[in-house]
């Protein structure tokens, strides 16, 4: 079995079978990460270039480490210290990098669709590490892996995604994946950030968190993007956390075995209480570990430029 495209641009483009293949392969890589020698020669001799046009802690280091564990040669470019500052465009940057022999290009960009544009212009395998407000496919894959590992399945689960859905590429990728696998997805947040029109995607929208959380098996918290403060989406972060913050009382409304997830970085005390983030139901740090295995699986299956 293989992936039908040379790139991973989004969950939208993946079939259920392809997603299952990635998740199954990721299990094998998770085993490798438990050994003393956490490295396999699978992609030895190939080169990966990380093009990050937006800041990142988790995703960037996760990809860099995943590449090294596969024995790839790794290069990382951050826009602020590259010639992008002098006005060099995306495609020119990519073609120059390809001329150096890149087999994989991992791109995070503030414009939705940037990876898609890139994939048409280079032979390398392009992986979307987050584009604008469109998608963040590897995040959704690692979230799905975490849910399957903890609960055993995705179909039929009640999964609540809470927060700034409107601007969240993590939410979108997760919505596409979880609905593809038959989960009941609920979106929770203020009307300004969770428009009711989203119900046309086949999911339920709740503006009242307490009713939205009743009986859910997974609570996925999203970061409140502080950059958007002062634009009228909600009166203040204090108000936000009063109505949509996850604290132990609200968590008790969910299923007794419910797990708490967060893609990071967290705003402790705003969208999530420290007690919950560090509590026994939180799988936040496991998501990070799983992210490494999932990204290794994606690159292994794509195999690099052909």
């Amino acid at each position, binding site marked *: *079995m293989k992936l039908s495209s040379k790139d991973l641009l989004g969950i939208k483009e993946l079939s259920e079978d392809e997603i299952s293949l990635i998740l199954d*392969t990721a299990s*094998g890589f998770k085993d490798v990460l438990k*050994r*003393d*020698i956490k490295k396999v*020669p699978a992609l030895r*001799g*190939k080169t990966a270039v990380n093009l990050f046009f937006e800041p990142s802690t988790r995703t960037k280091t996760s990809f860099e480490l995943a590449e090294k564990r596969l024995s790839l040669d790794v290069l990382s470019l951050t826009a602020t210290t590259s010639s992008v500052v002098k006005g060099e465009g995306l495609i020119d940057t990519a073609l120059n990098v390809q001329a150096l022999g890149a087999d994989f290009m991992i791109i995070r960009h503030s414009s939705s669709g940037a990876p898609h544009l890139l994939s048409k212009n280079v032979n390398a395998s392009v992986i979307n590490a987050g584009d604008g407000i469109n998608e963040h496919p590897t995040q959704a894959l690692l979230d799905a892996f975490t849910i399957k590992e903890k609960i055993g399945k995705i179909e039929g689960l009640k999964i609540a995604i809470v927060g700034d859905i409107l601007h969240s590429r993590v939410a979108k990728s997760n919505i596409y994946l979880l609905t593809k696998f038959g989960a009941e997805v609920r979106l929770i947040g203020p009307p300004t950030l969770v428009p009711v029109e989203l119900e046309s995607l086949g999911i339920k929208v709740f503006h009242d968190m307490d009713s939205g959380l009743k009986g859910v098996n997974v609570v996925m918290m999203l970061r409140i993007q502080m950059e958007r403060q002062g634009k009228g989406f909600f009166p203040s972060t204090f108000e936000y956390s009063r109505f949509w913050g996850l604290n132990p009382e609200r968590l008790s409304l969910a299923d007794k075995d419910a797990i708490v997830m967060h893609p990071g970085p967290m705003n402790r005390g705003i969208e999530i209480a420290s007690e919950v983030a560090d509590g026994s139901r939180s799988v936040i740090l496991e998501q990070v570990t799983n992210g490494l295995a999932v990204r290794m699986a994606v690159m292994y299956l794509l*195999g690099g430029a052909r």
Partner: protein
Amino acid sequence: MSKELLTKKDIDRILARMAHEITEKNKGIGNLCLVGIQRGGVHLAKRLSKKIREIEGTNIPVGSLDIAFYRDDLSIRKEQPEVRKTEVPFELIDKKVVLVDDVLFTGRSIRAALDALMDIGRPKSIQLAVLIDRGHRELPIKADFVGKNIPTAFNENVEVCLEEEGIEDKVTIE
């Protein structure tokens, strides 16, 4: 056109003989362990360990090894090989490992298995047991224990079918 070379009974007798050979050459089962190469080798390793238990009265550790990441043809294949479980739930240091595979052909799978095993630990020694040796080695690799030698043409295909995979035990060539 496929021809049956070994029947279920043949395979069973061969494994019994191999189990005796392994315990004979190693003068017992001290520090011995079996590691089967996915997929065929894993089932055979389990069967051999049962037979060794019948002879020596004790269980020896059995593990499984997936060699997908160590193959030397990953960049020329059209699709990446399926990744299966590697489970070696015991320390390799001081152990005599007997690698088990169903068919020995070019020797490249065994080379990959050696690399995979060495990344997991440092065994005292490694021996190789195969059900079928079909010749055509491309690397200097030799089996210590062979079930049956079958001379073949390069383009022929030898298949070992095992009950554990849902098909009747048999070895065929075509």
